[in-house]
């Protein structure tokens, strides 16, 4: 009985791993034309997401090195500054994600095609982003930047997936739809 239960649980976990990988594979096959990424960044400024050195904010090696050299004060000051910078970056990421979601809603209103699978993936990405964002924010405030790089990677992934999805949807719009979208988006940004 115990042997069978262990086998069942292990089999289910492994099957779930392969199924989720298969889903990621098929989602990752969507090509994102570089021109459309440029177009998206032109329309929707993604300050946090396009900051390429964000991973270094979560890297603790330099102030640990200072700490080992017994430059404790300098190390602590660096850690505090880094923590503030990381919190600022998290705020920018939250704003980027909100802006991406608003833009996506407008895309759909302008005629971009959607399907149940895409919507499901977006919903999952949105939930995981919000949960991880909140967790990372609380963690940094409470404990600092220790053990955060993995969460950082996990946080960036759903945001990148949503932006790729939006860029792909943008690529499929007709010129008239694109013109309408640009007009409505500019109007919305000027009013908010």
């Amino acid at each position, binding site marked *: *009985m115990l042997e*069978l*239960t262990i*086998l*069942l649980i*292990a*089999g*289910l976990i*492994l*099957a779930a*791993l*392969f*199924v989720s*990988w*298969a889903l990621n*594979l098929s989602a990752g096959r969507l090509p994102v034309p570089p021109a459309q990424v440029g177009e998206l960044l032109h329309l929707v400024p993604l300050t946090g997401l396009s900051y390429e050195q964000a991973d270094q904010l979560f890297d603790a090696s330099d102030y640990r090195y200072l700490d080992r050299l017994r430059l404790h004060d300098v190390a602590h000051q660096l850690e505090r500054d880094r923590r503030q910078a990381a919190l600022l970056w998290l705020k920018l990421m939250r704003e980027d994600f909100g802006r991406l979601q608003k833009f996506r809603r407008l895309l759909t209103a302008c005629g971009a095609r959607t399907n149940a699978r895409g919507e499901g993936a977006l919903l999952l990405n949105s939930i995981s982003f919000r949960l991880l964002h909140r967790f990372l924010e609380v963690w940094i405030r409470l404990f600092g930047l220790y053990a955060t790089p993995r969460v950082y990677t996990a946080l960036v992934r759903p945001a990148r997936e949503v932006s790729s999805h939006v860029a792909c949807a943008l690529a499929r719009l007709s010129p008239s739809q694109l013109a309408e979208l640009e007009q409505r988006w500019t109007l919305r940004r000027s009013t908010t």
Partner: protein
Amino acid sequence: MVIVYGLWLGQLTLETLLFVHLLLNRFFTRHPYFFTYLTVVWVASVVEWIIYHWVPAHYTGVYWVSELLTVLAGFLVIWEIVRQTLLPFPAIRQLTSWSMLALVLIILLVNVAVALMILIANVFPGPSGSGRWTDLVYGLERWLYLLQAALLAAILLAVRRYSLPLGRNVAGLLLGFGLFASLTVTSVASLALAHIDLTRWGHLYAATYLVTLLVWCVTLWEYAPNPLPVRSDNLEQDYARLNAAITAALVQVRTGLRKTVGG
């Protein structure tokens, strides 16, 4: 009965189609281990088919021996995936090859022993012997499938951890066989837990294998070489670090021993 027969027929048709296609396209030079696996499985399926229709009295014995052979041949698929994925890392590939060879040899010995027992039980059937062998084979088979699924999951995690690129062919092999092994374990365990006659798991097995064959037909129809990794530093660095740590530990042990013996 019609569903089971239909699944079996579909499985045999797809297997034959894939085998002939890969043979004509000389896949045996590109993915030799996978091709050997497919050959073993295809021959076993054809033999089972013939025995079932012309010599049904011997079908059970042949079925279980071919089952054990195909489970064992499954390690060839895993080896093909490892070989293709680790092609640019000769040191790690060598280490993995020796570990896998040792593992397969142990399993081979166990499998041969069980196959012999089945054959003997089939040729000289005792009053209550057959149930015992069947249970033994079921038990062995489900643990072997779990081992294969776990090995494939480890490969998948390593691929993701070190951002190793997977070509269409290798990705198809990994996905198809990973799904097959993990779903087989799940279905066998759930049937046994629900006290459903285990001989009925053939339907689930056939359905899962059919899905795997479909995945392979789609992903292996055209040859796609595995791309070389752009960033391979992490894997080699990790390996070098592990190697250095082991060497340092061995030096420390040797020094300690010398001191102890000398003192």
